């Protein structure tokens, strides 16, 4: 399973890719595998806010609705509209074309609460028992 080293990870299975004061957010390969085929995605609108550890959207898969929890706080500047017609991008390519939102980071210090690739890998291994 792939956990790119340049990303930071949240324990609720989202990744963050920070570039300057912007950050892309999506769900991890582990998360998409656990969820199964994703059929709908609900994401915040541009201009909305995310708050670290709080819900920022939902996905429907395998007959469950699962909430998405924001890895960091910020203002939503872009949303991946392609997921409306092609939610399967999240399953097929979770770290690239399956990205979900882009935010303007409001507090860089929050990144310290996130996990590195190695730490996240260890975390899900422990979670699986």
């Amino acid at each position, binding site marked *: 399973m792939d956990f790119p080293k340049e990303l930071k990870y949240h324990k609720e299975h989202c990744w963050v890719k920070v570039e300057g004061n912007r950050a892309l957010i999506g769900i991890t390969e582990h998360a998409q595998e656990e969820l199964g085929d994703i059929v*709908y995605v609900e*994401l915040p609108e541009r201009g909305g806010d995310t708050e670290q550890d709080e819900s920022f959207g939902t996905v429907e898969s395998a007959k469950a*609705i*699962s909430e998405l929890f924001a890895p960091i706080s910020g203002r939503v500047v872009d949303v991946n509209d392609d997921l409306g017609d092609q939610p399967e991008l999240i399953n097929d390519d979770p770290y690239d074309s399956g990205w979900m939102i882009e935010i303007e980071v409001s507090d860089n210090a929050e990144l310290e609460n996130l996990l590195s690739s190695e730490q996240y890998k260890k975390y899900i291994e422990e979670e699986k028992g």
Partner: protein
Amino acid sequence: MQPWRLINSPPSDGFTNMAVDEAIFKTVSAGSAPPTIRFYTWAPPAVSVGYFQNSPGDVDLAACREMGIDVVRRLTGGRAVFHDRELTYSVTCPDNVPTFPDDILGTYKIISSCLVYGLNSIGLNASLTSPMKKIVKDSPSACFTSPSHHEIAIDGKKLVGSAQRRGEGGFLQHGSILIEFDGERLRKVLPGTVGLECVTSIRDHSNIDIHSLVCRIIEGFEKGLGISFSNGDMTDEEAALSRRYRKERYSRDEWNLKRPAHI
């Protein structure tokens, strides 16, 4: 081990039923109420649609009005269910209870196994369906005739349909156990429904009354989960929350008829 709470609710309309499930989901996930199993029925009957489902597109709203059937949007996923003569269960549990795994299908499997224990104990040949094909977006609109995972069938015909929501520190799974099934009535409110021959009901196999059925299913959960129940009711907080959710969400057309703004 923490005792579970058992709530037997009086028959209620769909707006109340969904508001109560959400209120209990909220408090149980937050740890202010114990893990809970609830049983309820629907009066008047109602169609519930999945969280992301396009209700005006899939439900004959005029027929529902004429037949006195409410339409309500669920918090959970999946497709439309006609709640007519059925017993509904709901299970709410926080994430930190080791009884259930973190994943959706693992949770389905455990809950379905408990239901199967109960159904087998009244002599029904109920069993879990195998995990099936991929879910196809915009496939048939009625839940009972769509592919599913770890659901419950008798001789290959579906008896129980369930749906789940995860988040905020816990999960809610609720599902319909068909007591009697009238395909013609179903087709009036959900006209696109196909595969009715693949549905069965308790009445096709047993004359058990609902109270006795609930008792057997409770025993199934006690055996399957290794837990004990204490009879309970909603807390004041849950009662207040459910009134609020009913008023602000589930009794409103904006919620029930308008699909969430998925992208």
